[in-house]
């Protein structure tokens, strides 16, 4: 593969991720509006919000660390996208593997933690400590799920996992082959998106929106952009691991939207758990399913 081709892919993949992410944000808000019995935002709303936030005329910054950390966080999510293969674009997916991806996925949280720490707002600090707790809660089941998938397919390379699943049509999809593991993975993905009942760090009524409390203007805009990437990443990752990945965009897009739709819809009918309940619940159920799935894989 020549360098120009790679470069085009490196630009194209985040761009697609962003655009699809915008639509996912719109879906998030529309689904919410529907359940709340109202109309919801216009189609371009996510874009308006981001442009508006970046075009704020005064910007408050809490020191260099604030700015750097936010760039680190944004960089983390963008980097994540180029490791996620999508139809026609493999990016760096062949160079890196699942393990790299899992590490990359922690960068945004850590970057955010650094940035919020620089703001010195107690609500932000509590929020970020909750966010890290939540990460612990979902990362362990996720690790187990990833390990199970890797064991099942005998590889950590995502293109290879996709290829293996696409070999026999739907019957070779992860969700059919390893349903328990897929369930554990779905719960972990749900928690990864940070939606109620697992949303503990952006708790307006408790800690005044936690990490976001001091984020304004472009920083808030960055968070909005990150949300697009994150929704997309979770959708793609789960699709890649369990739903046969992407062969054509026409079949790939519905899959990733379907994955994201489940937590986005269910979040509206639950309140948030307390921090320790999230830990308990995730380890008990998500972890339980993941372990059971892993055991099944190992036993096979």
């Amino acid at each position, binding site marked *: 593969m020549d360098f120009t081709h790679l470069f085009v892919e490196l630009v194209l993949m985040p761009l697609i991720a962003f655009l699809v992410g915008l639509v996912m944000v719109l879906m998030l808000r529309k689904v919410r509006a529907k359940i709340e*019995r109202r109309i919801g935002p216009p189609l371009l709303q996510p874009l308006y919000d981001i442009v508006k936030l970046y075009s704020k005329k005064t910007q408050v910054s809490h020191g260099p660390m604030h700015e750097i950390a936010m760039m680190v966080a944004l960089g983390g999510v963008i980097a994540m996208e180029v490791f996620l293969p999508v139809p026609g674009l493999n990016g760096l997916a062949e160079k890196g593997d699942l393990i790299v991806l899992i590490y990359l996925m922690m960068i945004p949280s850590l970057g955010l933690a650094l940035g919020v720490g620089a703001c010195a707002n107690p609500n932000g600090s509590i929020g970020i400590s909750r966010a890290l707790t939540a990460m612990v809660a979902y990362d362990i089941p996720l690790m187990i799920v990833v390990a199970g998938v890797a064991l099942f397919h005998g590889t950590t390379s995502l293109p290879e996992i996709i290829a293996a699943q696409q070999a026999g049509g739907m019957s070779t999809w992860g969700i059919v082959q390893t349903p328990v593991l897929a369930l554990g993975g779905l719960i972990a993905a749900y928690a990864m998106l940070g939606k109620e009942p697992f949303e503990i760090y952006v708790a*307006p*009524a408790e*800690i*005044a929106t936690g990490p976001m409390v001091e984020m304004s203007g472009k920083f808030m805009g960055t968070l909005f952009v990150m949300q697009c990437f994150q929704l997309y990443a979770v959708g793609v990752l789960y699709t890649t691991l369990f739903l046969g990945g992407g062969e054509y965009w026409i079949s790939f897009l519905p899959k990733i939207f379907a994955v994201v739709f489940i937590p986005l819809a269910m979040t*509206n009918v*639950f309140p*948030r758990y*307390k921090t320790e309940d999230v830990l308990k619940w995730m380890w008990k159920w998500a972890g339980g399913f993941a372990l059971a799935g892993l055991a099944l894989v190992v036993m096979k």
Partner: protein
Amino acid sequence: MRPENYKPVQHSASHEYELYFGPNHPGIEGNYALKCVLSGDVVQSLRADGGYLHRGFEKIMEERLWIQNVALVPRICVPDPVPMEETYARAVEMLGGLEIPKRAQWIRALMLEASRVCAHLFYFGGHAATMGMYSNMFWGVTDRDLILDIFEEITGARIYHMYITPGGVRRDLPEGVLDRLSKVLDYVESRLPEFDNLFFDNAVVINRATGVGTLTTEQALSWGVTGPNLRACGLPFDVRRDDPYLIYDELDFDIPTETAGDAWARTLVRREELLQSIRILRQIIATLPKVGGPIRCALPNPLAWNVPAGSVYARTESSKGELGFFVVSKGGAKPWRVHVRGPSSMHAVHVLERLGPGSRLEDVAQIMFSLDACPPEVDR
């Protein structure tokens, strides 16, 4: 702030830290502040800080004519203004020895109960929102709005009706409004199973709300807790039944209680009260067409109305608890003194400050909302 001017705040080394809840905080009902000292997630001490909504009601009421205060009183409590109007009006009637026509009494009871339905629907939304579940709030507020439409039809205003005046009410009911109210009640009742699905049978909600802000019966009695909060501790006391006013002794209704005394019990009591209010409203709808007569008694010209000297203490069961108005007249055209005993004044300061310590940070907002503490009536 500019980056170069930024200096991080230095905190002394301690496991305790201060966290301000409010006045600008989504976990606060209204404009109110709580100063919490926390260790980890656990509240060590909690201090209420009010006065952000202070308007000096009691002072400016002394500056206005008896009738002018009709416009002032509902503003004391924004979410549930009708009991304010009713209590003030009744206090003045007691001072002046006025006999309210029967029809006015029934209409006033109708307003009071409809307002209770409103307040409770609002409350469910508020309680759910403190736990991060907004669908319930959206539903509750939306359904409440249908009752506000009825209020608008009867009184000409949605929130501040200024409808109940000393001596009766200001307008008779418009044609057909009882039928429409009846339909709205049917609708609200039909919505309750949906609320049950979403909220009252929600495992996560119950997990979050049980055991939060628990009041024992003894605490409730000695801390002056009233209203649904008292009934959630198992004491079936209700001003409507034990110190009846208007035509409440002619109505048939139950006084629901719970025993747990926690946030969830308070919410369940209110759910049951909502049903009871609907039951009362249905009785009123059935009876009102048969009650004829004037809607207010003859009053002197309000510009020159001297209410006889004396003092009275009038009480009403508002959606939040016992509401009291102590009104003193010196025989003049203006009240000499009006003391408002807002039901929340106990709950938002005294009780909250005592329930706070030992609770979790994430439950502070829930405790405040579950007590249905309404800051404007604390600040007055």
